């Protein structure tokens, strides 16, 4: 007989074990899906998860995809840990990219070491501006940040669309929906010859370290945490709770904006219609899979990045649509939420007595 018993307190070990369990269950379920589709499950999973990162180029691609995921998820962890449900990182990424792309275009045909920092800063500011909208509406007008931040994603994509088709489109571009190429001074340097991995990865690593420090070691981080759990408690303790909410949104927006900068000033070097394959949404999964902890997020971003690559190889070698990648992302989140049940309950196997 199986019996479910409540735990006296959530288990620390289980807290780190459930993400692993979720990934395992995703693989099992994924194998099953491949089997039903008529593929050999192990071979298909190999194409999906091993082949794409088996060589140097593949590994570079993995880091390339993991960088924005990690960066955004770090920013989101500030929001989520303080109970602010910013799910519009995709919009903040897009708007950050628009602002930094606009600045990069201003310096078109110019060279100088000062250009790249300005472009990066512009991206962060763009993301912050865009994140401040749901934050201010939430704190001063009691709107729901989930709805506002989500809706703004579509607004930002339409703005981008308008710009690359209209005023910012490349005059010599035969009406393709894209801008001019940025000058080399506005691009993040590539790290290795022939590989696409670029200096954006350092931004992500810096974000990991800074976020860990701020959240776990500073008074500011403590106040953010308290304000997130309860504005009433924050007020009672004497913190400025509303400012804390706005601050976490700004941090999260800045990170997403930086991810946007990385996307357009990295290998691509221009603004175009589809600058992000929904990194902003996928990063939500990364943040939770990484348990909102900086180190966890690093691992989670690598795992989830594989699904992007695997989807592409699967499309090429197995002729299945690349949206399988999203199926896997969905399954990870699904199994993670399901296995979180184990945090609070344990399953006991009791031998039948009679």
């Amino acid at each position: 007989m199986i019996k479910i018993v409540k735990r006296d307190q959530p288990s620390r070990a289980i807290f780190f074990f459930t993400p692993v369990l979720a990934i395992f269950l995703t693989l099992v379920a994924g194998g099953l899906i491949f089997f039903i589709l008529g593929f050999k499950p192990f071979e298909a999973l190999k194409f999906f998860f091993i082949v794409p990162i088996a060589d140097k180029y593949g590994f570079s691609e993995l880091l390339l995809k993991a960088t924005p995921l990690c960066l955004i998820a770090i920013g989101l962890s500030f929001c989520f840990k303080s109970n602010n449900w910013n799910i519009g990182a995709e919009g903040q990424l897009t708007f950050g990219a628009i602002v930094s792309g606009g600045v990069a275009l201003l310096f078109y045909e110019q060279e100088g070491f000062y250009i790249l920092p300005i472009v990066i800063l512009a991206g962060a500011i763009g993301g912050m501006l865009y994140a401040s909208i749901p934050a201010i509406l939430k704190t001063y007008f009691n709107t729901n940040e989930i709805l506002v931040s989500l809706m703004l994603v579509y607004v930002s994509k339409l703005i981008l669309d308008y710009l690359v088709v209209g005023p910012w489109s490349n005059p010599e571009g035969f009406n393709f929906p894209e801008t001019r190429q940025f000058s080399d001074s506005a691009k993040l340097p590539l790290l290795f010859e022939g590989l696409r991995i670029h200096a954006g990865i350092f931004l992500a690593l810096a974000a990991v370290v800074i976020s860990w420090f701020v959240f776990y070691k500073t008074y500011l981080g403590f106040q953010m945490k308290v304000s997130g759990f309860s504005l009433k408690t924050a007020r009672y303790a004497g913190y400025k709770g509303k400012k804390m909410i706005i601050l976490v949104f700004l941090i999260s927006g800045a990170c997403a904006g930086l991810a946007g900068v990385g996307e357009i000033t990295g290998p691509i070097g221009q603004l175009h219609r589809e600058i992000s394959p929904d990194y902003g949404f996928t990063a939500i999964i990364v943040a939770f899979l990484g348990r909102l902890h900086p180190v966890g997020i690093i691992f989670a971003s690598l795992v989830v990045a594989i699904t992007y690559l695997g989807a592409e190889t699967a499309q090429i070698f197995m002729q299945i649509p690349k949206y399988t990648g999203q199926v896997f992302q969905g399954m990870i989140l699904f199994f993670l939420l399901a296995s979180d049940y184990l945090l609070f309950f344990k399953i006991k196997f009791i031998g039948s007595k009679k």
Partner: protein
Amino acid sequence: MNTNLKISNVTKIYPGCVANDNVSLEFNSGKIYALLGENGAGKSTLVKILSGVIIPDEGKIYLNENNLKLNSPLDAKKNDIGMVFQHFNLFETLSVFENLIIDSDEQRESLREKIDTIIKKYNFSIDLDIPVLNLSAGQKQKVEIIRCLIRSPKVLIMDEPTSVLTEQETSELFLSLKKFSEEGILIIYITHKLKEVMQLCDEVAVMRRGKLVSVSEIKNENIESLANKMVGQNLKTIKKKKAKTSSDQLIKITNLNFTSEDPFETNLMDINFSVNRGECLGIAGISGNGQSELFQVLSGEIISEKNSIEFNNNYIGDLSPQERREYLMAFSPEDRLEQAAIPQMKIFENVALNNFKSSNFFNNGLINENKIKEHSKKIISDFNVNTDNIELKSQFLSGGNLQKLIIGRELITSPDLLICFNPTWGLDVGAINYIHETLIKINEQNKSIILISTDTDELLKLSDKISVIHKGKLSTIMNAEEVTSEKLGILMGGAN
């Protein structure tokens, strides 16, 4: 006709907790039964089983020898079991009459007649055609009772009915209940207030930790014996020594006003009082009369005019809670789980919420975890918090232990004034005793207390002076010895 209700071997298990452990009880009409127990003793689960809200894992319920299958509240109604819950289930914007007919399929006219007879018979003074939101809590409760009476129930269950009532409303309720009982309705009265049990009931069943511990007749019991059964240990009675009359003024409130933009809050009008060192000022009142607003104005969550609050010869009306703490004030808000502490955070993190400059919890913007932990350990041992793990999330502390932690956190900085709001609300008798002892000790150390509470007994026990708040206004301040609970009740109802 005689009604007999039998609960036979009822067990209800939740993950990690046995709410009812093989409970068997028998009730007969003509008597009023008390079901007594602390919070979490299992009495609510038991009455929810009787009213069909919860289905037991094991056990049976018989009404006049018929085995009842209670799978929903509707089944309970059909079987003539009526229940008045602690929180009212009324539509505020509908009229009293509309509320009464809403779950009935009888004709309006015949129902109206029926309701009129009930109102006349029991002397309820209620206008059927005004919206429920205009009624007092006592009247709302009467509407709930009438709703049960329409169905001429055999059993009427009352769940903690007096928690929102004034003294006068309570005695009116008791009169009605006695009348119902004489007419043959079996009454089960759930409470943790011992005094009420002694006043009203004929028999008492005591529950503790899901188990039935005793069934006895009231005439064989007294308050102490019941309290001991409820807690499972012998309690000492606490008495406050009369305070040395000091004339050394600590805090003075002058012409304090607060006007809220929120229609659900109460405005404070022209509040004036002062508290001397070593004194406890009790502020009584029915909840929702401005207590919460008064607490916030005093704690600094709501800022007021600088000169309206004078503390230790400083004007502090415009200071934030943190700044006020530096002047040696401490605050214990009403809501333990949503305001005074954060259940999802660890014990030591909750301790850091009272950030007093000299305790050095935060240096140059960095958290000084060792200092906080050291401090937390001291609170835990000094204030008898029943745990040795300060890394535990505070949601795993019982209400009593959490309150001890909060009071401890506020007191360990040895403040001159503690302002507390319903400090023992919802706690078990043991914890209440501990908190009361602690508060008395503070006064003995020549420190002052402002005690805002809806519990009249607590106020009479602890206060040196008492005032009553009604609709945002304070009554004159009276000496506690000259006050009776009857007098407080009248003032709480708004009369002069």
